[in-house]
């Protein structure tokens, strides 16, 4: 058994910007020369997970592509808060067309670039499409699936905050069960969102057998960066689904965004993994799974579960879903391994 050298400096996932690490281990954001693809001054809420996720993801993509990125963006919070015309936060070429056609717009951009390359015009410019969960799992789903099926050379990033936040927090097909939204109010015999069958788009993306699918959260930003980097090494359709807590829609404190993302992972509510050609290649393991209650309780969208008469059954149901994720994706770290 070999000993690890003692490190007299702080390391680990909590210290994304650590400049004391060896250069190859540093986060993209640690570099003074980071791209700032989405610049400060945008109009997101304080503590917006989507803004954070986009910043890390796009900068990592930019770094991997040597600054040669064109981005397509669906209608939604990210689009609205980043482009309060005439100001724009985007330091990269960026197009917003509609809500439901982003994957197709990106496909078009990629096709044009391909033709240009064949004509010897323009270099190796890569395409990133991005949208919220609504723009991805609902209205843009048809176009997304088409893009996957054709294996178009696009990296699609979904920022999942579990609802249509831009229009005032309505339910999307990514809204978790029991969560209150403006269209699934906490009233009636089954308050909050329904327990449907769920629609976990990463798994559906995997079913297309595309070269790369990954999930990530804004709690593990180095992991997120690494996945974007990995995705950029691959050609064809790629999909990264990032869980991005939304203080407004979830009813959480702005300073709790990262904590909420971490709890989603540590309870098994949101499995974090990586898959190639439809097969899971790695997972972020959970050392000691936390009860879902720790994740649910701080969020106002679940407040109705915890009043005077706690909704024990509902909480147990959610716990069962998390437990199933842990089993299905083999999230629990086995004793002795790291």
């Amino acid at each position, binding site marked *: 058994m070999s000993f690890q050298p003692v490190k007299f400096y702080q390391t680990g996932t909590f210290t994304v910007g650590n400049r004391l690490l060896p250069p190859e281990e540093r986060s993209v954001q640690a570099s003074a020369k980071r791209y700032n693809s989405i610049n400060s001054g945008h*109009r*997101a*809420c*304080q503590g917006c997970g989507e803004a954070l996720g986009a910043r890390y993801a796009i900068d990592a993509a930019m770094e991997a592509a040597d600054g040669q990125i064109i981005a397509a963006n669906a209608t939604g919070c990210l689009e*609205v*808060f980043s482009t309060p015309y005439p100001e724009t936060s985007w330091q990269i070429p960026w197009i917003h067309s509609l809500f439901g056609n982003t994957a197709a717009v990106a496909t078009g951009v990629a096709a044009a670039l391909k033709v240009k390359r064949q004509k010897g015009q323009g270099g190796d410019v890569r395409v990133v499409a991005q949208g919220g969960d609504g723009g991805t799992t609902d209205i843009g789903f048809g176009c997304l699936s088409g893009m996957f099926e054709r294996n178009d050379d696009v990296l699609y990033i979904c920022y999942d905050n579990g609802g249509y936040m*831009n229009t005032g927090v309505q339910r999307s097909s990514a809204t978790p069960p029991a969560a209150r939204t403006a269209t699934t109010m906490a009233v009636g015999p089954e308050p909050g969102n329904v327990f449907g069958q769920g629609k976990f788009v990463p798994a559906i993306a995997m079913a297309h057998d595309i070269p790369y699918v990954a999930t990530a959260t804004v709690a593990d930003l180095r992991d997120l960066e690494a996945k974007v980097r990995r995705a950029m090494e691959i050609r064809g359709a790629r999909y990264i689904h990032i869980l991005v807590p939304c*203080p*407004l829609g979830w009813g959480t404190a702005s300073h709790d965004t990262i904590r909420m993302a971490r709890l989603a992972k540590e309870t098994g509510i949101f499995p974090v993994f990586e898959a190639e050609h439809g097969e899971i290649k790695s997972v972020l393991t959970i050392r000691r799974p936390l009860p879902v209650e720790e994740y649910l309780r701080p969020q106002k969208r679940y407040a109705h579960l915890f009043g005077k008469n706690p909704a024990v059954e509902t909480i147990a149901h959610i716990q069962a879903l998390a437990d199933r994720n842990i089993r299905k994706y083999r999230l629990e770290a086995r004793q002795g391994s790291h």
Partner: protein
Amino acid sequence: MFQVRIHGRGGQGVVTAAEMLSVAAFDEGRHAQAFPSFGSERMGAPVVAFCRISDREIRLREPIMEPDAIIIQDPTLLHQVDVFAGLKQDGYILINTNKTFDQLGLGDMIRDWRQERLCTVPAMELALKHVGRPVPNVPLLGGFAAIAGVLKIESVIKAISERFSGKVAAGNIAAASEAYAIVIAEMEAARRKENQHA
């Protein structure tokens, strides 16, 4: 017709304040129209809401460009937004602050204003004290009932209890009532001072 413009930031209940003003006016049997500034602003961004109160049906649909009164929910806006734009000569100003107009840097602007029309109320503190949340909108409505004399404090209280219930309603009523008392006292003091000068 009496026209009020409310300035604040997204998340401070600016639109709710305008709506509640309109409900208070309705409860007095008057016509009222409240509407927001229709932006797509996020929490923290400057927002505006409007309220018209009249004894006749209100048909006008333009934004309020020449208000009779301005309520400022967030004094940090004073240096960011032209909040006083179009305010009628000797219109009413109510600011959520524990500073004076001079301390806010507004001394020059209001020199010749009728002093009893310039009021401040520490609405944020009142909200924290009575409701436990930093939402200044409702206490300011109490203050508003005191300044312009357009609405009775009883109507504001009624509107509060229609909007909220239980502890939140009680807290807001207490906060609004205290704000009302503070502003009444302020105006009295200003009037006395003006009389001395006269």
